């Protein structure tokens, strides 16, 4: 077969498999990139070559490997450019003193341990063509790596970027990253020349080049940025210039005698960090590099990883020793330094695990080592296993030492927390907990009706004096979901920008709410999330929310009305949920509750009563439909509750009992004359709890008014207790 065709087929397989395995790893809450690395290893002799050696040799014949190498080197150069581009001095702003100490120690300890480990490993797994100094230097460097890019994503995914731990870890990792690259550059120079003395000219030349890039190069790039600002966009000509710069810089560092990747990284780091320029440049570059070229690097690296080489128990022991030294070196170094700097135990421990993330930075280093012949295939494989394990363990260990529920929901506005604190601490006996409504808002510009309804449910209008009132809080929740977990948009700085932007939109929305007095009880929560439904349910539990009020739009391509996120929330959220189908009515004055007497209908009625109490102009019609001539009455409990309502409220309730063969049609007809229909997810109304059946959406589709569908989770939530104390004792037993 023609070699080009073969290489293209290989690329096809590589990209397909790396996406597949990557997504698999994402589903177990691991960074996509680990999955891609594993996919590369699977394609190599460790799995594919083991189960189907003949097919493997046919698909990946040795003569195609150099072509994959070229592609992977190009990918690596541009990836390093992206890493440099991401390195923002902003990360250095937080707790610099602690960060410098911690990152220093977290490099020096594993480096020293790596050097000592070399004493054991050198006679066993190296050969005489490599000097001990080179081997020890390289092993030390490999041990002290922290992968800034992977760490940054883990931090964003866990919503840590605003916290003390998150900023500290980022600063440490940024310092570590730069230090480790310098260390690696020295190791390469020594490896190429054989000893320290021979490497000195290379090291001097590198320092001169770095100096030049950070002065003259930076000055030139700043002019480029000015040009960009004037033009307002990144033209292809400008982009061509930058890409040429990346390649030229890579070539210069290769000529100096370090490695291609350093030049690319340096140019990225020297780029002026103009927000728009960096974003546009990163977005334009990253897709092709991350989707197409980087998986080829992983596959190329995987083809050289031979887990089969570890064919003796003592080799697995050596591998465990390397792993132990790598983990202990980073963890102990970081932990001790952080404790000395006055960080508490839990955070110091979490920081220790975070700094253990080695990810693909380690893979880059190892491939250079193998290419230079400094490390043998056996130790290469051991170190790849070490890199995978240390990266893989970060997320679970972080969750273990620093569970999500302990990470402050620090994106909640500080005032709201303070307010809640005061309320709960000042009147703990009288007010056990404020009435809280969580409102997931996907699009602040179109969901005003939803938030307005939440506010009306939560707060009485001005002038309505209630003798007993709980504080009520509405939390509009905006979750930003990243499509890709390894894109520029998921870097902490960018995530912060998106959060600020979304918060701004929510603030604008809140400022349009009526009446203005109620705005003070609305506190938005904006977070990054990888799974909106799951995260909503988690926040609902953490914040002890009484009700989730979610909006629903007709899906564009799906016939399943309540599938997707709303469906997931309805099934998974451990609190009461109400789904609002907005038909665009501004005023919600006349309400309709079709009542068939189950717990979901009770919730519907209770919410209707809340609206009734909070708005003096509201009217409520309770519709009871009987199929045959048996005349049903409101349940005893409901009747009792009605009797306890103040007359001013009771006067506005009309109970209508009608006879109809098809309840849904009757409700649809009745809905014509009202603003809002509130219905429980009960069978007569065609809305099941799961809301995935075939009757599911008749009401949602045909209802003439806006619709609020309620699903009760707990039978003991007291939605009315906040307004009418005497009811609170009855409400939980409303229906058994």
């Amino acid at each position: 077969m023609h070699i080009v065709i073969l290489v293209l087929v290989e690329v096809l397989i590589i990209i397909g498999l790396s996406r597949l395995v990557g997504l698999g790893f994402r589903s177990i809450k691991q960074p996509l990139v680990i999955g891609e690395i594993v996919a590369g290893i699977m394609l190599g002799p460790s799995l594919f070559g083991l189960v189907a050696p003949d097919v493997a040799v046919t698909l990946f014949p040795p003569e195609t490997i150099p072509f994959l190498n070229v592609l992977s080197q190009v990918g690596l150069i541009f990836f390093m450019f992206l890493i440099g581009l991401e390195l923002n001095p902003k990360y250095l702003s937080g707790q610099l003193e602690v960060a410098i100490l911690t990152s220093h120690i977290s490099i020096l300890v594993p480096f020293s341990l790596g050097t000592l480990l070399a004493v054991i490993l050198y006679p066993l797994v190296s050969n005489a063509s490599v000097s001990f100094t080179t081997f020890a230097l390289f092993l030390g460097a490999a041990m002290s790596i922290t992968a800034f890019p992977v760490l940054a994503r883990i931090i964003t995914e866990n919503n840590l970027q605003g916290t003390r731990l998150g900023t500290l870890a980022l600063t440490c990792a940024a310092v570590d990253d730069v230090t480790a690259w310098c260390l690696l550059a020295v190791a390469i120079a020594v490896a190429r020349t054989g000893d320290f003395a021979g490497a000195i000219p290379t090291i001097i030349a590198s320092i001169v080049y770095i100096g030049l890039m950070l002065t003259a190069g930076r000055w030139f790039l700043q002019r480029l940025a000015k040009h960009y600002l004037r033009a307002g966009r990144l033209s292809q000509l400008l982009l061509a210039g930058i890409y040429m710069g990346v390649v030229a810089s890579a070539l210069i560092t290769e000529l100096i005698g370090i490695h291609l990747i350093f030049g690319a990284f340096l140019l990225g780091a020297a780029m002026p960090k103009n927000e728009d320029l960096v974003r546009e440049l990163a977005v334009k570059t990253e897709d092709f590099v991350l989707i197409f070229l980087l998986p080829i690097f992983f596959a190329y690296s995987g083809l050289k990883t031979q887990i089969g080489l570890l064919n003796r128990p003592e080799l697995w022991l050596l591998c465990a020793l390397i792993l132990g030294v790598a983990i202990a070196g980073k963890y102990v170094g970081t932990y001790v330094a952080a404790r000395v700097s006055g960080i508490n135990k839990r955070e110091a421990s979490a920081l220790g695990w975070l700094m253990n993330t080695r990810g693909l930075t380690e893979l880059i280093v190892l491939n250079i080592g193998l290419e230079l012949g400094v490390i043998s295939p056996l130790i290469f494989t051991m170190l790849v296993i070490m890199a995978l394990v240390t990266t893989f363990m970060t997320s679970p260990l972080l969750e273990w030492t620093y569970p999500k529920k302990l990470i402050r929901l620090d994106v909640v506005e500080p005032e709201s927390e303070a307010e809640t604190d005061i309320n709960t601490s000042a009147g703990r006996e009288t007010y056990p907990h404020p009435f809280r409504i969580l409102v997931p808002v996907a699009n602040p510009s179109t969901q005003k009706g939803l938030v307005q309804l939440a506010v009306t449910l939560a707060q009485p209008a001005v002038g309505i004096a209630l003798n007993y009132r709980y504080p009520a809080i509405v939390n509009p929740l905006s979750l930003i979901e990243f499509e890709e977990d390894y894109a520029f948009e998921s870097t902490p700085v960018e995530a912060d920008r998106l959060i600020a932007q979304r918060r701004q939109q929510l603030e604008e929305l809140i400022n349009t709410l009526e009446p203005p007095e109620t705005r003070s009880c609305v506190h938005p929560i904006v977070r990054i999330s990888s799974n909106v439904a799951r995260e909503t349910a988690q926040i609902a539990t953490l914040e002890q929310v009484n009700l989730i009020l979610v909006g629903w739009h007709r899906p564009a391509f799906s016939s399943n009305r309540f599938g997707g996120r709303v469906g997931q929330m309805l099934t998974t959220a451990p609190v009461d949920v109400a789904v609002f189908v907005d038909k665009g009515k501004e005023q919600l004055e006349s309400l309709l509750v079709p009542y068939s007497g189950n717990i979901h209908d009770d919730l519907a009625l209770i919410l209707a009563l809340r609206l009734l109490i909070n708005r003096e102009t509201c009217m409520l019609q309770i519709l009871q439909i009987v199929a045959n001539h048996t005349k049903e009455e409101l349940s005893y409990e409901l009747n009792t509750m009605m009797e306890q309502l103040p007359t001013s409220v009771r006067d506005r309730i009309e109970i209508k009992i009608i006879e109809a063969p098809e309840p849904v049609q009757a409700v649809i007809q009745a809905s014509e004359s009202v603003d809002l229909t509130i219905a429980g997810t009960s069978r007569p109304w065609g809305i099941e709890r799961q809301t995935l059946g075939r009757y599911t959406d008749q009401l949602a589709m045909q209802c003439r008014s806006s619709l609020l569908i309620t699903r009760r989770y707990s039978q003991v939530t007291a939605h009315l207790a906040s307004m009418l104390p005497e009811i609170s004792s009855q409400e939980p037993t409303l229906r058994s």
Partner: protein
Amino acid sequence: MNHFNFKSLAFYGVTIVSVLLLFRFVSVYGENNLKAPPPLNSRYRLTLSENLPKCEKSDTLTLNIQQSGIYLNASVLPANAKADTDEKHSLAGIFKNRHLNLSGKVGRSILCNIPRPQNDPLNSVTIQMQLVDKGNMTGQLTINGIPQTLKFTAVPEKAEEKSQKF
């Protein structure tokens, strides 16, 4: 700036210098006292002193060796095999005191240098080699089921141009 005061700088200075001293000490110790095994060639041509029993012709064989320190993985190939054939290594062994010990399974068709049949019976083999001057080796091949040991000499083949390097 707080972190650039004398105390911190002294601390950083002391730690960095002590790590450098440790490195210096360990590397001097390593260079003088630790001996890694000499590098082996990745490809040897084996010339057997006599024909394998039950084979018509089996004068020369190729031995591919992948060395990781003292740990070896190797494969035996027909003499005319292409230089870059990526055969799975079926032999494993240890390299100690200029002495190689390899054992594993080799297909009969390879040993006899005949085209590979559908069901190629595998022979358990043991190879013992001794490094002599100029990288040449002498050794003996033991095949399970055949009582006598076969002596051979191994000559390193010129490593063909490596394709990975840029």
